[in-house]
C-alpha cells in the first residue's frame, strides 16, 4: 500500500496527540503498510530526538531580565498607579518629569499609555454606573469579546471592558460643555449640525446603530490602538466611549479622567491610524 504522507497527521501521531483516538490506529496501519509512511515516521522520530537536544540547549540558556527593564518594572510597581487599592485616581507616573514631549519622552509616555488605559477598567465601570441608570441598554465593550468560557479566574485578568454606548447623538461644543481645543480638522461652529444639541439621530438611540465610518473602531484591536493613541496626547482613564457624532461628523466621544481632571475627548474615524485623530477636547465643567 502506498499513500502520500500527511506530515501534520504523522507529527500528531508520533507526538502522542492522537493517543486513544481512532486516528491513531489508522496512522499506525499506514505506517505498517506504507513504505513512505514508515520511512517518514522513522525520519521524524530521529529528528525529534535532535530537536529535543536543541531545545534542551535553549532551556539551559538563561533569559534574565536586562537591568534597564528591571528598572522600568521597579518604577512601574512603585508608581501610584500600582497602589493596591484601585479606587483612586489613576496617575501618569511620568507626568512630573515631562516638561516637553520630545521624541524620546513621547516613547516613554507610550510605555505608560497602556497601563493607564488598562487601569481605566475599574474606573470605567464606576463612572458608567453613575452615568447610566441600570435600565439603560448598553453595549458590552468589544474588548471583552475575547473572553473565553471557563477558567473564570484566569479570563477575568484578560478582560478589558471599557463601557461603550451607541447613543447616535449629535454632540457639539456647547452640549459637551466646553469651548477649548478645537482642532483644525474640526468643523467650524457655523456648520454645526442642524439637529438639536446632543439630540439623537432619527432612528438612533441607545444602541441605535453605529455610524458606518466608525465600524472599524468596533474591532477591539482597533479600539485599543485608538485609546493608546489618545493616551499619548491625554494620559488618563477612558471611562466611557460613545459611538456618536460631533458637529455632523461621526466620532467617538470619550470621557477621560486624567490627573488634571475630567475631559471629554472627541476622536474621528481615523483614530488609531492617524494618531488620536483628535477633533475636539474639553474639560468637564
Amino acid at each position, binding site marked *: 500500500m502506498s499513500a502520500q504522507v500527511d506530515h501534520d497527521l504523522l507529527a500528531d501521531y508520533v*507526538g502522542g*496527540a492522537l493517543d486513544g483516538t481512532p486516528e491513531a490506529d489508522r496512522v499506525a496501519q499506514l505506517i505498517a503498510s506504507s513504505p513512505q509512511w514508515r520511512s517518514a515516521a522513522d525520519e521524524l522520530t530521529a529528528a525529534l530526538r535532535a530537536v529535543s537536544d536543541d531545545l534542551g540547549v535553549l532551556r539551559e*540558556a538563561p533569559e534574565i*531580565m536586562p537591568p534597564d527593564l528591571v528598572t522600568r518594572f*521597579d518604577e512601574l510597581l512603585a508608581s501610584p498607579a500600582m497602589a*493596591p487599592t484601585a479606587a483612586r485616581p489613576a496617575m501618569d507616573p511620568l507626568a512630573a518629569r515631562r516638561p516637553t514631549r520630545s521624541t524620546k519622552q513621547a516613547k516613554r509616555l507610550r510605555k505608560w499609555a*497602556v497601563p493607564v488605559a488598562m487601569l481605566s477598567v475599574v474606573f470605567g465601570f464606576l463612572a458608567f454606573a453613575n452615568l447610566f441608570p441600570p435600565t439603560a441598554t448598553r453595549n458590552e465593550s468589544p474588548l471583552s469579546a475575547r473572553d473565553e468560557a471557563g477558567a473564570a*479566574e484566569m479570563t477575568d485578568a484578560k478582560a478589558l471592558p471599557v463601557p461603550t454606548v451607541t447613543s447616535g447623538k449629535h454632540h457639539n461644543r456647547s452640549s459637551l460643555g466646553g469651548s477649548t481645543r478645537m482642532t483644525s480638522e474640526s468643523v467650524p461652529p457655523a456648520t454645526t449640525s442642524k439637529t438639536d444639541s446632543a439630540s439623537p439621530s432619527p432612528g438612533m438611540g441607545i444602541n441605535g446603530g453605529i455610524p458606518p465610518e466608525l465600524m472599524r473602531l468596533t474591532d477591539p*484591536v482597533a479600539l485599543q490602538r485608538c485609546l493608546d493613541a489618545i493616551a499619548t496626547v491625554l494620559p488618563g482613564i477612558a471611562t466611557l466611549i460613545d459611538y456618536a457624532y460631533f458637529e455632523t461628523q461621526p466620532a467617538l466621544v470619550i470621557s477621560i479622567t486624567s490627573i488634571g481632571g475630567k475631559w471629554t475627548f472627541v476622536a474621528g474615524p481615523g483614530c488609531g491610524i492617524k494618531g488620536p485623530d483628535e477633533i475636539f477636547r474639553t474639560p468637564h465643567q
Partner: protein
Amino acid sequence: MIPSDPRSDADLLMAHAAGDQNAFAILFHRHRDRLWAVALRTVGDREDAADALQEAMLSAHRAAGRFRGESAVTTWLHRIVVNACVDRLRRRQAHRTVPLPGQDSTQDEERWHTGRHEPATPPIDHETAMVVRQALAQLPFEQRASLILVDLEGHSVAEVAQMLGVAEGTVKSRCSRGRARLATLLGHLRNPDSAGYVPPGTHTASGGIL
C-alpha cells in the same frame, strides 16, 4: 532590592488584594525572570516582550482579588503573560507594521537584546541556542507558546491547556507539529514541501536557519 519573603505565592496575592503595598512587587520579583523568559521567547522581540509583560502584570495586579486558588499562582501568572503575548502577536499580525518573528532573523536577533547589557550566562552553546531561538520564532505563535510552556518551561500539557484555554489534545497537537516544524527548520528533517533534503546539522556550521 526586595528582600525575600517567607509567604507563599497565594498568600502574597491575597495580601495584595487586601491592600498590602509591597506584596505584588514581591510576587513579581520572585517570578520575574521566568515570566520574562516566557514573554521574550513567545513574542521574539525585546520591546514587545517588555510591553506584553507590563500589560500582563497590570492585568494580574487588577485581577488579583478574583483569584480563587483553583490553580497555582504561577500557572495563573503564566497564563496572563502568554495571553498578553498572543494578543500582542495577533495585533502585530493584523497590522503588519512590524515584521513577524522570523521574517528577518538578523533583526530578530538584534532586537532580542538590542545592545543592552547582556546578562551573565553560564557556559552554554550560545550558537545553538541562538539558532533554536530563531527557529522557534518562525513557528505559528500558538505552536510556539505551547512549545515554550511545555518543552522549555516544563509545564504539563494539562497545565498549559488550562493556561491557554484549549483542550489538552490541542496542546499536544500544537507541540507535536511545532517540534516537527522545528526539525525541518533546524535541518534535522527534510522539508516536506521541497524535493531535496536539508542536510542535518548544517545550522551549527552556518549559524543560520535553513
